[in-house]
């Protein structure tokens, strides 16, 4: 009898919780009409950003590809006539990507960045192969000021030797002056 009573009380307790929730704010979002707020550092769709001068930041160093645990990034480096290196093509297979963000961490130029966009669904899986033109955005993304070639020692169009930040004038090798 005693156990029957305690059983009934437990049952009612549980039901009361359920009933109480009728008056709570709803936690479910009616996606896609309604969207959940996303933390700004949420790791979603990968983009390639541009430097403040408007040129692609990626220098095709292959570090993101090397660090990628699912090997879903590949590219081919090339160079313009002034020595600026950039990817001839850049490809991410989003059907394999696990959005771990290692590529962003490895990137020495802040080129590759993960954005909070998570809506990557496709009816055709082949559409998940993103090429450079799909990845490159027209903004700087995070680290808006950074421009790798301002710090690098190589000369590119518009920046000769000795013109980068923190560089001295090129040495005159014919001079023996101190």
């Amino acid at each position, binding site marked *: 009898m005693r156990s029957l009573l305690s059983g009934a009380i437990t049952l009612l307790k549980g039901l009361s919780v359920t009933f109480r929730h009728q008056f709570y704010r709803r936690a479910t979002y009616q996606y896609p009409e309604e969207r959940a707020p996303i933390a700004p550092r949420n790791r979603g769709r990968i983009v390639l950003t541009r430097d403040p001068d408007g040129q692609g930041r990626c220098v095709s160093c292959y570090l993101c590809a090397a660090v990628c645990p699912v090997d879903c990034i590949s590219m081919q*480096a090339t160079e313009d006539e002034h020595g600026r290196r950039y990817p001839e093509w850049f490809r991410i297979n989003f*059907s394999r990507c696990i959005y771990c963000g290692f590529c962003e961490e490895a990137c020495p130029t802040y080129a590759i960045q993960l954005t909070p966009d998570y809506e990557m669904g496709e009816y055709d899986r082949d559409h998940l*192969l993103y090429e450079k033109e799909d990845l490159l955005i027209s903004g700087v993304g995070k680290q808006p000021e950074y421009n790798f070639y301002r710090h690098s*020692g190589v000369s590119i169009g518009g920046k000769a030797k000795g013109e980068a930040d923190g560089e001295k004038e090129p040495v005159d*090798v014919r*001079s023996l002056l101190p």
Partner: protein
Amino acid sequence: MQKMPKVTIDNETYDVAEGRNLLEAILDNRLELPYFCWHPELGSVGSCRLCAVKQYRDDDDQQGRLVTSCMTPATDGARISICDPEAAEFRRSVIEWLMINHPHDCPVCDEGGECHLQDMTVMTGHAHRRYRGRKRTFKNQNLGPFIHHEMNRCIQCYRCVRFYREYSAGEDLGVFASKNHVYFGRFEEGALELPFAGNLAEVCPTGVFTDKTQHRHFTRKWDLQSAPSVCTHCGLGCNTLPASRYGTLRRVTSRYNSEVNGYWLCDRGRFGYEYVNGADRLLAPASVADNGPPPSWDASAATIAGVLGEARARGTLAGVGSPRASLEANFVLREIVGADRFSPGLAEEEHRIVTRYLEFLESTSVRCASLRDANSVDTALVLGADVTNEAPLLDLALTQACRNAACRLTLTGLRRGRLSKFAADDLCLDPDQAAFFGAAIVATLRGAPEPPEALRDSLPPGAHECISETTAALSAARRPLIVAGTSARHRGVLEAAIQVAQSLESTSDGGKQPLVSLALPEPNTLGVTMLDGGEGPGLEDLLAAVESGRISTLIVCENDLFRRCSDPERLASALAKLEALIVLDQMETATTARARWALPVAAVTESSGTFVSGEGRAQRFFQVKAPIGESRACWRVLRDLFVEGRQEGSELAREWTATHHVSTVLASAHTSFGGIDEIAPPGDFRLLGQRIPRLSVRSSGRNAMPDMVSVRQDVQPPEDDDTPFAFSMEGYQGRGPTSLLPRYWSPGWNSNEAINQCQIEVGGPLHGGDPGRRLIEPGDGRTGSDGAGLQTVGVAAVPKGTLKAVLMLCGLSEIFGSEETSRRAPAVAESMPQAYVLLNPDTAVSLGVVGDCRYGLRLGINDKVREVSLTVRVDETLPLHVAGLPAGYPETSWWQAPCWATVEILGEDKQQELEKEQP
């Protein structure tokens, strides 16, 4: 046996070889110590101070002192400490100082990922740049098509100039300025002159000098797919590590072999690889008979096998092998057509020369010199060869002999060259005279008081002292080396060289080891000649048989007959007479253009097989990448034809499914090839049941490859029965046998300095022995002929005419341009000279021409007249009566062996006309 010195390193006692320094002692024992400027071949200079360790006087010394280990001999009883905190801190500081000026370049630097500086920075533990000042910068130079210069990255180890100037005796790269402004470059911008400049990319511990051809299609080391291979651009058989990515070849680096090339490669070998990616590669089987869609492989094989079978039954079939195809391919072709119908595919004179050389090697106790042997000879006589251009790495070896062993060098090439500065005697002789010079030495060696008069008169004045001096030096030498070349196309030269070596051998008291070397132009020239064994017809005989109709079906394997035959018109009309010409080749040639069937075959880097180098060393090369287009390994195509033809003996060929099956059959069928099946592990070799991966474990991007048409990734890596390697990053991760090392890597050593970890002793042989096996070792008995009949083959008599216009046409080998495949590589093509005729300035004056201008020339050889437009170049070292033409150029392929010709200069309008006609 002498007691080995014992050195105590961090309280452990190690045995050390005699004469080593502390750094070598440490590395020999697989301990880790950072270093920059020391190199096993370049020695120690102690300029970087990175290899500092603490040395203690004795067991009681607790204080110790810092010493530079590469400058301190490893004496018996020495006590040192590597991990002493003070030494470790000192080494960390050295890196920190170097990093003050090192640019922020790693992401865009070609060295990144295989950078010795990166490795050493990690090894010393330097991780944070404290210096906040500005960095020193330099301007770069354009150093030509091979080497990229980025001087900001320099750490002043001096390795580049030590290699360039001291080791290789180059002159145009030097050090400028002082203190921290030290600059390594040329006095003026321009292409590096040294034909070994590519080694700078490997010697430089950071990214100052990098491979410019790789720069254009850059790939990191960890992404490269590679396998051991052998260089195909001359007959020396240097070991290489070609590497590919996304289906194209990306670079070639040297593969260490202490017996052959050591650490080095020449620029032709390193930069000639791009022909493999060329637009003129054959991609699919083609047939002129069909106008419809291109024939499939299976259909072509069935039809061709039928044609071959029919011709064989009628007895009208013949086959032409090739010195640039593997032994396996040549062997299968020989099985199809029969030994008496197989021509090795060498030019007529070259065939005779190589056959004679082989006959000599097999019967003598004179040793055929390896490159390592050539490094330490004490007297060298080069007869009628241009070593620098014909066998570049032999030049580097002789440079070492002259630098270290004070080798007495006698040169008798047509013109002066790089080695001339070391030469005690440097006569510029035409091939005839070189042969006479050799014959005079033979006569003197055999005790004639004076060389015969006939010989003396044909030599220029001043040669007589050279004869007696060279003879004296050769008689006194312990290790004399006689070098002859094939590009002179002169049997007399080789005969003289053989007789000199033989005479030295027969007069030897036992302490003398005469060496001989013949510079061969192609990777398998010796191998295909050994296979032929003198049984098959030469190219001339074959041509005659085709003309007379006795041969109506010809199958040519990887050979452009127009490079071998001195009469292109005759060859073209003979080929036109054939009922069927079947050509298997990698690329479009003049021969494939005339073929009824042109079948695409894989390049050396796309297939596996065996080459026999000029030294007689059989070496295995392994497939690096999948063949381009529909091409297949040459031996496999031939085997399919063999099986399909159902001829006698072809049942056995059904079981030849991998390269090693063919090599095993070849090894048992020919005694001279005994053991070639054992030079490398067979295709079914496994370690712990696994293949050896061609890709590194860090290889990236396999789920986003460009050839991926769909994300379903249903493309499998190609089947590979031929090699123990996998087209994958998966497989045995330990270190396999050294003949199967696909790359040099060791934990903490990402740069090519990881080679140190694969050697028994740093700078010595590899663990498990250097790959390859010498097939021809000197016999014990002196069975060689004692030179009863020294024949010198004179060039036919001078034709009548004004002497002014009668010149001896001689072939000049060019390192860039004379070799068939490398001249199709863009970087090499940029470096090769235009087709030319080289004259002595006095001859040029008497002909009324000036240097570096184009002229129309009418050349009369025997009764034939030929008109060509060529650039005249002058060289004052060339004999007056000689006109030099570049060997291996299509513009001058109508001409082969040295001969006299009447030379006439044509008018300008005629020259313009010729210019238009020439391709």
